[in-house]
């Protein structure tokens, strides 16, 4: 849990916005923008894992990349161990890169097929350190040991490895410069179940040993429950709920979180056949043209009139637990809470 750790904030993100322009027509005029990440704020404490979950297109990967400043962000502030990097230029960012690294989703695409494992892992060392060749080789071996790769394979190429082993190469590369903060962008999505557990256990073990801080991006809610200390749920570019892990999974507050959790099939037929699924209607709206008011109002089973007009602000419902939903605003909580409970019962409807 985050409160049992050091309690020092390593990453602070405030009002982060990442909008991508849409160009159209003969003159490629700017006709709109995709609000991939729209006004997102969160902190990550030292040594903790913050899980970032959501469905495809909700902006979770963009958010992770923006936090590492792989994009020029539209606006907002990002502080890593107190240093503002939101507006930093290339020159100022470069010396900070070693502290913040990334593990990518697809280990097939993120490793250069023409480089050997040793060269892949030592590339960050070439860029950022002045180690001698022998020192580099030692460091590469050390890293390969740390992630459970056989040293004898140092001169092999990525295609000679399985998916799980390739992901280990990616993790070794991310660790090369002794980072403090690692963004893991769906690191297990491309792996088989039995291999997923191996990689997750490795990430946890490295965290304990090296005191790493993770932003763990995933669409797999059950795996996030396993690895994260706190969890942020994103929908259409916004964080709709942020809470300590157990609070989020046991007492989800936002209607979207509730629906998302209920949609995950349980690997147990006696639970699964009895479980009441909240079925959401329709699809996620386009982030280029989000609905007015609350982004979730088009699919929300507890939708109220106000949701179509006013964007909800974020309310604190418990220590460390915040929700962006009108159900929890104090002024309408009393009256709306009751009607919402009735609506919720009615809205466990079938399909579309």
């Amino acid at each position, binding site marked *: 849990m985050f409160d049992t750790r050091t309690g020092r904030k390593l990453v602070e993100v405030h009002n982060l916005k990442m909008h991508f322009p849409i160009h159209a027509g003969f003159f490629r005029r700017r006709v709109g923008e995709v609000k991939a990440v729209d006004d997102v704020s969160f902190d990550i404490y030292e040594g903790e894992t913050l899980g970032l979950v959501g469905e495809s297109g909700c902006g979770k990967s963009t958010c992770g990349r923006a936090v590492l400043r792989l994009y020029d962000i539209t606006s907002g502030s990002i502080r890593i161990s107190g240093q503002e990097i939101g507006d930093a230029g290339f020159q100022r960012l470069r010396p900070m890169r070693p502290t913040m690294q990334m593990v990518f989703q697809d280990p097939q695409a993120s490793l250069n097929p023409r480089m050997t494992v040793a060269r892949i892992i030592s590339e960050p060392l070439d860029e950022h350190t002045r180690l001698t060749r022998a020192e580099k080789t030692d460091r590469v071996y050390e890293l390969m040991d740390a992630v459970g790769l056989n040293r004898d394979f140092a001169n092999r190429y990525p295609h000679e490895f399985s998916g799980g082993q390739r992901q280990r190469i990616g993790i070794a590369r991310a660790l090369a410069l002794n980072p403090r903060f690692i963004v893991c962008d769906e690191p297990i999505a491309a792996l088989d179940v*039995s291999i997923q557990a191996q990689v997750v256990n490795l990430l946890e073990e490295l965290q304990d040993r090296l005191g790493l801080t993770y932003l763990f991006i995933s669409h797999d*809610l059950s795996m996030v429950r396993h690895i994260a200390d706190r969890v942020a749920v994103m929908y259409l570019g916004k964080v709709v709920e942020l809470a300590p892990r157990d609070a989020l*999974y046991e007492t989800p507050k936002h209607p979207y979180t509730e629906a998302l959790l209920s949609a995950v099939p349980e690997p147990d037929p006696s639970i699964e056949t009895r479980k009441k699924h909240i079925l959401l209607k329709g699809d996620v709206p386009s982030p280029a043209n989000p609905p007015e008011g609350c982004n979730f109002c088009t699919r929300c089973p507890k939708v109220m009139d106000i949701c179509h007009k006013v964007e909800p602000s974020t309310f604190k419902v418990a220590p460390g637990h915040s929700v962006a939903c009108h159900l929890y605003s104090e002024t309408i909580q009393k009256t709306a809470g009751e009607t919402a409970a009735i609506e919720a019962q009615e809205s466990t409807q079938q399909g579309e």
Partner: protein
Amino acid sequence: MPDGGLPVLDVKDLKTVFRTRSGEVHAVNKVSFDLRPGELLGVVGESGSGKSVTMMSLIGLLPSPPAEVRSGQVMFGGEDLLKVKEERLRALRGARIGFVFQDPMTSLNPVFTVGYQIMEPLRKHMGLDKKEARKRARELLELVGIPDAGRRLSDYPHQFSGGMRQRVMIAIALACDPEVLIADEPTTALDVTIQAQILELMKELREKLGMAVIWITHDLGVIAGIADRVMVMYGGQVVEQAPVRELFGNPQHPYTRALLKTVPSVSGERAEKLAVIEGQPPILSAEPAACPFRARCPQAFDRCARENPARVPVGPGHDAACFWDPETGGPRNV
């Protein structure tokens, strides 16, 4: 629920080999199973376990070369599908056996309207004229829950979302009222909330239409909610087969037992450390002479390296291919 009648599909000792430049890959080895009327058979396994190749072999969908269905028998409606001519297979595929594939974007043709693609099997297999086919196509889209079906018929695949495209695929598969529907990871490419919609739709359709379904997936959660019976595949073989509750409640094969433990859940106890199946799946360069799981198996003993275990009955409707008995904690008497 299965009504226990004669199987609609009966597969015996199916063996499929891929010939590649660097040697043979024995992807499917002596796979036997049957599918009873109206039941949903779940097939679970990791990538490379042979689950898709098995189903593609049944109906001649594998490109040959490199694939070669080397032996076996697939009885469907009194015919052996491995012996019949290609034209006959073509008449069965899409008419009496329907398919839904994993990726709804790549399995629909982007240059034809959705309506055209649904009408194609109706006109080819059922000989409907254009007007009748269009009417039926519209009914099918309504059946799979696509709003404004009449107008959507003239839309192209890219105008549909992922979940909607998968609904279109299901509509095409159901067009000619198949007796068997083979669904290969139909919800894997979809988000959980959309997956929940498709699973619900599938349950409804089975009640309405009563066809038998083979559902391939790697997601044990999906299987738990939808299947009547489950077949677990590993290394190109069936290692365990049982009714769904029996399989989850009383798994017998060490692979199934380990697989159930490695999967975290969103409710219930949260394990501090995930259980792990160490090692990698086997490379099937020859027909396995020993148990394919032995290198990763915590229970493996000397016999496992000498023989490949056959499937033996271990309970009502339940069989497993293993020499080890979890009840006694020792070797099984087989």
